[in-house]
């Protein structure tokens, strides 16, 4: 399977996010929140590109997941950090890959414990299909339909460049995207 170039996708969603911000009543009421880890990398790149001075935060949502009873806490939780006041803000929630929607649900629940946002817009690099809840991303870089045995991962190299990789257990072979 040929994977798209994540850098291209990033440029695409950055433009869409800019358009979204232009429609907001005022830029002071907007904020970015990135979901660890991929969403945070993307958010940093988007902030650099748009050169905006708007509040931003990071979420881990590990403490709000719905699979705690079965899986326990992940060892590598990074603390969430929302330093701004969530109340009445238009939040752009950024994640790398949208799958079942459960991470988004957990992130939203955590966000609501900080305050009541005016709106949340979900922006993702890739929607891989397979939503299990009535939750969908508003801004999508690409739709790539994958099955349950396939695993898509975003990574960032030491120079800050983004890469996508696919692990495919349904065919028992691996495909790595070329950039």
């Amino acid at each position: 399977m040929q994977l798209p170039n994540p850098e291209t996708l990033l440029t695409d969603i950055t433009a869409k996010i800019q358009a979204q911000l232009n429609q907001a009543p005022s830029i002071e009421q907007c904020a970015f929140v990135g979901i660890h880890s991929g969403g945070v990398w993307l958010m940093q790149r988007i902030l650099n590109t748009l050169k905006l001075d708007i509040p931003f935060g990071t979420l881990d949502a590990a403490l709000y997941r719905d699979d705690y009873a079965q899986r326990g806490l992940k060892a590598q939780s990074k603390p969430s950090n929302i330093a701004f006041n969530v109340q009445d803000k238009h939040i752009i929630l950024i994640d790398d890959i949208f799958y079942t929607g459960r991470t988004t649900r957990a992130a939203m629940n955590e966000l609501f414990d900080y305050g009541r946002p005016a709106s949340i817009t979900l922006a993702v690099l890739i929607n891989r299909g397979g939503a299990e809840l009535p939750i969908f991303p508003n801004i999508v870089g690409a739709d790539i339909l994958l099955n349950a045995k396939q695993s898509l991962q975003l990574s960032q190299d030491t120079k800050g460049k983004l890469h996508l990789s696919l692990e495919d257990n349904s065919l028992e072979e691996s495909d790595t995207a070329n950039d």
Partner: protein
Amino acid sequence: MINPQLDSDGNLKHLLTIEGLPKRILNQILDTAETFVGVAERDIKKVPLLRGKTVCNIFFENSTRTRTTFEIAAKRLSADVINLNVGTSSQSKGETILDTVDNLIAMHADMFVVRHSQSGAAHFIAQHVPDNISVINAGDGRHAHPTQGLLDVFTIRRYKPDMHNLRVALVGDVLHSRVARSEIHALTTLGVPEVRVIAPKTLLPTDVEKLGVQVFHDMKAGLKDVDVIMMLRLQNERMNGAMLPSAQEYFKTFGLTQDKLQLAKPDAIVMHPGPMNRGVEIDSCVADGDQSVILPQVTYGIAVRMAVMALLGSGSPSSLQAIGGGNVGQAGNSR
């Protein structure tokens, strides 16, 4: 001997003592606690992890302050809390420990926090509860107080991140102190190179060096160039038991005063598990001074206890293999 605290996959099942726990488990608890420090600073100081679970504080030995911190920790994880102060309840009517515990199990409690005046009580209870219940030792006799040991090293780690380069001194009644034992095990397991105990001979356990500490009987020698000073509480019974002549002489020889503090490194931190006996083991000006981190210890205590409960409160992570496809625990793959 099988470690009763770990399940067959090597994950924490009970927290009974720091002794025998691998370094990775201690680090797991400390790293998780970092996450919870942030929770306490928010407006909504709760996360839903233990929602619907019941945590029982079974205190056979009274302690309002420790019980309160466990209660706060459990509630911040959204658990329901039952407090059982056994001195005032059926135990004093002759009910055995196991009968008390069995009754609570029958009421579908999920987690027990146990404090008892006898060493080994938490191990004893842990041996008798069914698999789905976790036991946290909140202090058993003079044996262990693992959450205190953990919150103490968490505090040290926050102020002195390079644990491999520290000199730590524990001062006071090590013989009777479960806090001291837990602190020593935590420090040595985490690789602190020099752990000292400073006390008169009557307050040191036999063969204490075998726990990995250096023994000092002189505060001046013992505090020299130390980075962390951990004070221990002195109880009045020690005078009655012919171990010490008086609180005044103890303060003179082993009390932490401003000038003794100068012997340590200038940026040394002073700790105390509380409650303090001002003027006995520690001078007020030191307890309230710039180098004291005694109050932060309390704050971190809640985060550490939340971390312990959160790590114990889930089902066995080994059961995750059966759940949903191959996308298990990978960063960047939102579900």
